């Protein structure tokens, strides 16, 4: 290899998670020489598939693909890169201890109608309304958030566009959007529904992955956000080979566009020369020069660890330090000798997203513990059994259960080391209420607590969204004013991770928006 005096790369992307890879693709397509540096031994960040017990593999972080816009998947040609979906339009099943489980969208709603015709109708209404809201809000996710108080035409146009789309909802819908936008999801559900099981299932969507309970302010906003990302049609999918396959396809797309990707290349510092980014230095001491650095790491890691407070103003640093990023979500992986029996459900039924959230109050009580640094005694769970549709993940006849668990505090009273097994048992007992023989079929288990998630996926606080998804960290204040338009106060440094608008989940829009912003600025 030659060592040209000129920087070999125009842009370095720090972190090969899905946002970093999407960003690299679009930067490379924009004619830039791009290098992606990933600290782990494989790309993907928290969207990876890895072995957790001999012969058993699982999506170690996110376990469903549902937020990445189909247009983005098409545009990047992920199918051509080998992405296959093992299951699409997965139904959601709200589990009930009395086996009167409720099937929710999409699919057969006859059970819901039997349980409450009024709720079935109300659910139709609500989902139709949510879809209309989602269509109005979705374009916002694909834009650089407008600056308030700015006189630039682009900022004004974005604000006007948003206003116009909301106004176009019509008087009735617009009023409803403004009424519920800042509410807590508990109040919204009380207004519209009566079945506790239904309310629990809907509340789960509003709080999953967050540090919020159903009575926390802004939980309707997080529900709207989830709906807007999915454009109103919640299409849950299980990629063949787990979420890692999505990342592999994204990496393939980035390489095809001309980007280079290096794994086992942990960035130690972002280098600064004369108040401009000049490159990065790796943990090995290797220096790589580049005129721009785009970080998909979380804002706290990017600014406080990789860059350092001395290159930033104190007020900005304080805002970054105050970003709320305490994760409350854990992940449990179970290697199963046989498929567990869920009374009232067939094997076909289990090809679904299973929810343990019997009521909104159940979730709120589970959340109460976490407020005081305890784990939930009766946790809220989102369960998938990917091996029902994807045989590549486990030996023949065996199964993998992937469980997202709330709430597990980042700082647990007494520490996680001694209570890891206790919490694992709590989760298995909770599941046992719906699948009594589950415990006997478990061959191995793995629990990822927020500190584990912080360590493995390098996310400050172990928060899945890098920064809490709440009204005060949304849009033009995400992650903080002064870095909400993908640029940062330091010339040449950009953000492209989940800590930026429009946030986390395996969506990829933050990466694309950042790349577009960078290219636009350079033009």
């Amino acid at each position, binding site marked *: 290899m030659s060592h040209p005096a000129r920087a070999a790369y125009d842009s370095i992307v720090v972190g090969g998670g899905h946002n970093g890879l999407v960003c690299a693709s679009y930067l490379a397509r924009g004619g830039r020489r791009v290098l992606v540096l990933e600290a782990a031994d494989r790309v993907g960040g928290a969207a990876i598939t890895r072995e957790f017990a001999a012969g058993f593999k699982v999506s170690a972080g996110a376990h469903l693909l549902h937020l990445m816009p189909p247009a983005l998947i098409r545009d990047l040609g992920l199918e051509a890169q080998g992405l296959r979906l093992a299951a699409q339009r997965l139904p959601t099943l709200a589990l009930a201890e009395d086996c009167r489980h409720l099937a929710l969208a999409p699919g057969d709603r006859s059970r819901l109608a039997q349980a409450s015709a009024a709720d079935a109708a109300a659910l139709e209404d609500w989902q139709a309304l949510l879809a209309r809201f989602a269509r109005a809000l979705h374009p916002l996710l694909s834009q650089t958030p407008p600056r308030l108080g700015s006189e630039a035409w682009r900022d004004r146009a974005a604000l006007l566009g948003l206003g116009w789309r909301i106004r176009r909802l019509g008087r009735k819908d617009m009023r409803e959007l403004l009424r519920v936008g800042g509410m807590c999801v508990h109040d919204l559900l009380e207004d519209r529904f009566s079945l506790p099981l239904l309310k629990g299932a809907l509340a789960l969507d509003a709080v999953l992955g967050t540090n919020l309970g159903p009575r926390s302010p802004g939980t309707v906003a997080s529900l709207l956000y989830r709906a807007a990302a999915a454009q109103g049609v919640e299409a849950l999918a299980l990629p063949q080979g787990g979420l890692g396959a999505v990342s592999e396809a994204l990496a393939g797309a980035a390489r095809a566009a001309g980007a280079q990707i290096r794994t086992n290349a942990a960035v130690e510092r972002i280098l600064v020369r004369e108040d401009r980014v000049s490159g990065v230095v790796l943990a090995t001491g290797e220096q790589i020069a580049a005129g721009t650095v785009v970080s998909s790491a979380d804002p706290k890691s990017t600014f*406080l660890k990789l860059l350092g*407070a001395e290159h930033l*103003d104190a007020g900005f*640093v304080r805002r970054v330090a105050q970003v709320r990023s305490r994760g409350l979500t854990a992940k449990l992986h179970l290697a199963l000798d046989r498929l567990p029996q869920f009374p009232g459900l067939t094997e076909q039924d289990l090809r679904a997203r299973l929810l343990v959230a019997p009521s909104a109050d159940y979730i709120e009580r589970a959340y109460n513990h976490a407020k005081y640094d305890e784990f939930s005694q009766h946790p809220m769970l989102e369960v998938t059994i990917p091996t029902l549709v994807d045989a590549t993940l486990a030996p023949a006849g065996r199964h993998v259960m992937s469980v997202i668990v709330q709430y597990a505090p980042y700082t647990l009273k007494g520490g996680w080391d001694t209570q890891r097994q206790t919490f694992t048992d709590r989760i298995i007992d909770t599941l046992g209420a719906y699948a009594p023989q589950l415990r006997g079929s478990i061959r191995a288990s793995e629990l990822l607590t927020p500190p584990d998630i912080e360590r493995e996926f390098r996310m400050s606080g172990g928060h899945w969204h890098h920064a809490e998804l709440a009204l005060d960290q949304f849009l033009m204040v995400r992650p903080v004013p*002064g870095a909400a338009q993908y640029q940062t106060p330091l010339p040449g440094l950009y953000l492209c991770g989940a800590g930026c608008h429009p946030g986390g989940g395996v969506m990829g829009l933050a990466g694309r928006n950042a790349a577009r912003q960078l290219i636009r600025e350079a033009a």
Partner: protein
Amino acid sequence: MLTESEPHYRQPLLKTPFHERQRALSQLDSFVPWAGYTTVDVFTSVEQEYFAIRNASSLYDLTPMVKYRICGADALRFLNRLVTRDIRKVGPGKVAYTVWCDDAGHLIDDGTVFCIAPNEYRICTAERQLDWFRASAIGFDVQIREVTEELAALAVQGPTSARLLKAVGLAGVERLKPFEHGAFRMPRRAGGEILMMVSRTGFTGDLGYELWMAPQDAESVWDALMQEGRTRAVRPIGSKALNMARIEAGFVLPNLDFVSAAHTLYLGTERSPLELGLAWLVDFKKGHFTGRRALLAEQARGPRRQLVGLDVEGTKPAHNALLYTERSGKKEAGSVTSATWSPTCKRNLALAMLEAPYIGTGSSVWAEIYLNRELVWERRMVRAKVVERPFFAPARRRATPPADF
């Protein structure tokens, strides 16, 4: 001293270690609050006190000045990112006057940084800064402790101040250059010594020193200076006389010449160091500091307004006067922030914030002065000319060693 039992907001104003001595000499019993302490604004008469500053020596109690101890492995890096000057140039035994800004380049406060030892500093500020300092400390290995109550401070200012200090036994004080400090021992009358720090600093623009000592030594030091000063026309002074001297010296005061960006409520009332004419304090070459990018942009854009010195026609101080471009008073050009008749310069002086077109030396504006003549108000329009600051800068201010009166 704060007691443990009462929270500070339940307590009356604190008394400085010099309080009892000052109360005994305070003929007018005129005390004003300053940073949580009660302090004297006039002892006897402003003019007498003023002339002690300019013609003899004055004692001014500056204990309420807020003081922080900054130390730790990153103390220097922390300070250099906090303030606008390059603190790398301020070695042990040196002092620097500086300002600090928020992210927008707006002034938060000014103060003096004393380098005690490598990575050990004391910073004296007008207002409490713990919140901002702590925000600025994120990412730095530095300890910040307020030491206001642990130190008594006394300013000894005036042409005979070096002689006075030598007379009380502070040998070698005459060797201190401006903005230097050192440890000195003063013989205690009852035997033994009082250890103190003396710095050649001050707020009068004259020859002068500041003495920093333990609170329990405060009265002994005061007594020695007053005793020795009986034949030297030494006077304790209040803040009113000091204010006249500091305007002559062209120094700015928070809440008079600018409002800290930490306190402004209205947009646009914040001020940058460039606007205050303190560009000489801003070192763009030293590396990053808070507000640097904003100040660079402001510098590139050019000034919108600037604090200037005015020589005002007549003898009536132009307190709070609005300034106009024409005598007709139709178009405003700015306003006066501080004003005084200067007995030494024999000029009517003011500091004023002027809009950009009028800030050049020699340009002239009109001041609208309101006079209260036995409750009959008169309005006068007088000419005010932009002149160089400082208005008064005697050579003795910098002479080392100073003249030995």
